[in-house]
């Protein structure tokens, strides 16, 4: 765990007067708390692209990345399943153009394949303080609202019960040829989101959506951190 690194990223954003972290920054903060995130490289300029492609490997995902940009998908700033340098070059140019010079770069990211999407997050309840959320992710998050919360801090047992609270908990079992989810890894993620929220008071909200189960292993594929 590297609290100092997380703190520095948030301090820098605050000094710029920002209320949100970019996806790249958010994931660095999460990674500093041992929360598994996608391998990714932020590419500012076209010449650096080839090197990033080589390091991440195909197939990969490319996303416009700046703190001001929310709803990347709706703004057509996401390309998935990019499989060649040519495709990547075109994607880079289109994304950059779509960002209307709002600064920031293009995130070159490993593509996590897995059919099970979860959501995790943090809210600060006016009454109970930092509460961590767990639930079904992706498009199901808002439709089914199959979620549960725990007040931070909490232990592994609480985290396991929290996962067991949702109606769709069976999705964590071995289903349709997919292995049972690594619930210890999931529990550790939830506990660490709680720790992060207690350590860094400047964080107001967190979304990890989706967290994809790649085989048994959870990985945060997209992340949002909102500051106070």
């Amino acid at each position: 765990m590297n609290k100092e690194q997380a703190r520095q990223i948030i301090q820098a954003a605050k000094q710029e007067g920002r209320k949100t972290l970019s996806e790249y920054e958010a994931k660095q903060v999460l990674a500093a708390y041992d929360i598994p995130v996608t391998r990714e490289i932020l590419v500012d300029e076209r010449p650096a692209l080839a090197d990033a492609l080589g390091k991440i490997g195909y197939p990969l995902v490319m996303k416009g990345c700046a703190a001001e940009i929310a709803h990347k998908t709706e703004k057509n700033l996401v390309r998935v399943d990019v499989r060649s340098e040519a495709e990547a070059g075109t994607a880079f140019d289109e994304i950059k153009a779509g960002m209307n010079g709002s600064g920031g770069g293009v995130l070159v990211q490993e593509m996590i394949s897995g059919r099970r999407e979860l959501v995790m997050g943090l809210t600060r309840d006016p009454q109970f303080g930092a509460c961590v959320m767990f639930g079904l992710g992706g498009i199901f998050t808002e439709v089914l609202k199959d979620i549960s919360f725990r007040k931070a801090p909490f232990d592994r047992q609480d985290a396991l019960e929290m996962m067991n609270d949702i109606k769709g908990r069976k999705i964590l079992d071995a289903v349709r040829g997919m292995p049972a989810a690594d619930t210890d890894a999931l529990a550790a993620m939830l506990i660490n989101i709680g720790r992060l929220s207690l350590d860094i008071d400047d964080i107001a909200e967190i979304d990890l959506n989706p967290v994809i189960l790649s085989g048994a292993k959870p990985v945060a594929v997209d992340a949002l951190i909102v500051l106070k």
Partner: protein
Amino acid sequence: MTPSTAYPPPTDFDRIFHPKRLVIVGVSKEGLGFGAGIFASLRLIGFEEEIFLVNPKGGELNGETIYRSVADIPGIIDFAIIAVAARAVPEVLDACREKGAAGAEIFSSGFKELATEEGIALEQALVKVAAKGIRVIGPNCFGIYCPKSGLTVLPGPDLSRESGPVAFSSQSGGMVVDFTNAGKSMGLKFSKVVSFGNGCDLRETELLDYFRDDPDTGMVAMYIEGVHDGDAFFKALKRTAAEKPVIVNKGGLSVAGSRAVQSHTASMGGSREIWQSILRQAKAIQVGDMAEMAQTCLAFSLLPRRAYHNITVLGGGGALGVAAADMAETYGVQIPAFAKALADRIDEHLPRPGSSPGNPVDVANPFVPPKTLKEIMRLAATDERIDLQIFTSLIHHYKNMAMMMGKTVKEVTPYLELADDIKEVAAETGKPIIVILSNPKNGLDHLDVVDMFADARQAFIERGIPVFSDLRDALRAIGHVNKYYERKSS
């Protein structure tokens, strides 16, 4: 002055719940205001300790001296009931403090609940007096009910004096009056009940800790609208639920708050979701309304402390059969089919036609004599898987028999025999038996049936047999009991 004295001093709950010298401030000689009303209630319920009355006009009420001020009362007082105009309350409270009172309940309204500048200022004045060394229950409340001491809420002259395991705290006074009355008719017995209204001083969180250590309290029921300090409440709840069942009805659960938020997480974390999770995390039991609260408390009160996974359901009525099995499963309870040999033995006792010996056991005929029912329950209990039995009674049918025989319904209904038999079978088998008493005949032309049901209910309750009005209610309450003891043992 001894500088080492802890400040504020620890609350003397014993003098609050069991006062030897009680003062009622604000009794009027005319009419039945709050002050005179609580005085009458305390006498009627049989509160036997000293009561001093105060009103600036002096005089007498029912032969009792009315003192002109709290200061005029000889000696110290333990507890005060204050029912004077809001503006006069802070001064009266301070006078009670100076007289040595450990606490005071304030019925008067006209404080923070008005949301006026004056009301808020008056409540702040109360908080200041309280901090000087007197605990305040209220204002704007109906006070304390403690069957052991005879303290009662307003209006509560007819509440039970029998003490029992249920402690209850509530912001709402109406909720307290309804719950204690409903409890009395169901056989729920209370240790201490506190309606704390605005809750300017002593309220749910401290009461939780007190109830946790109170040897008279076996479980804590709470009606909560909001809490002052979420952290402190959560910790007290967790501590208490680790030792005793804590059953919570959270009122005013709104959908997601209207705070401006950016993340999915914050937009989905409305008070309903957060409260539900907080209660689960603390291992408290959440119920949806006060009826479920009472039923759950009844199950915790009367069932031995363990989980009940496999049950029998026997008797008659529409809820038997597939419906019962489905319902049971919803609450994590099974109604396992009997082995053929046992079903055959039960079948020998059943009337024909229409009965069915499996599990549930449908006796079909409502006039099967208690002796036969007793044998069937005995046999059913021999199935080793069975932890508990539910008997669904059909005694309302005896009205028809009474009419045909030209007798009263009470004469022909064998509920006393049934109650004795059920008690006997439960004791000898070690498997509790719950009775479902549901009366569809309750119109004006069936007041005799209503009356008989009240007697029957009483007969079961007196024998320690839990009575529910509905099979679903009973199963849901068993579900809560199961969850609590399973979590405790895990």
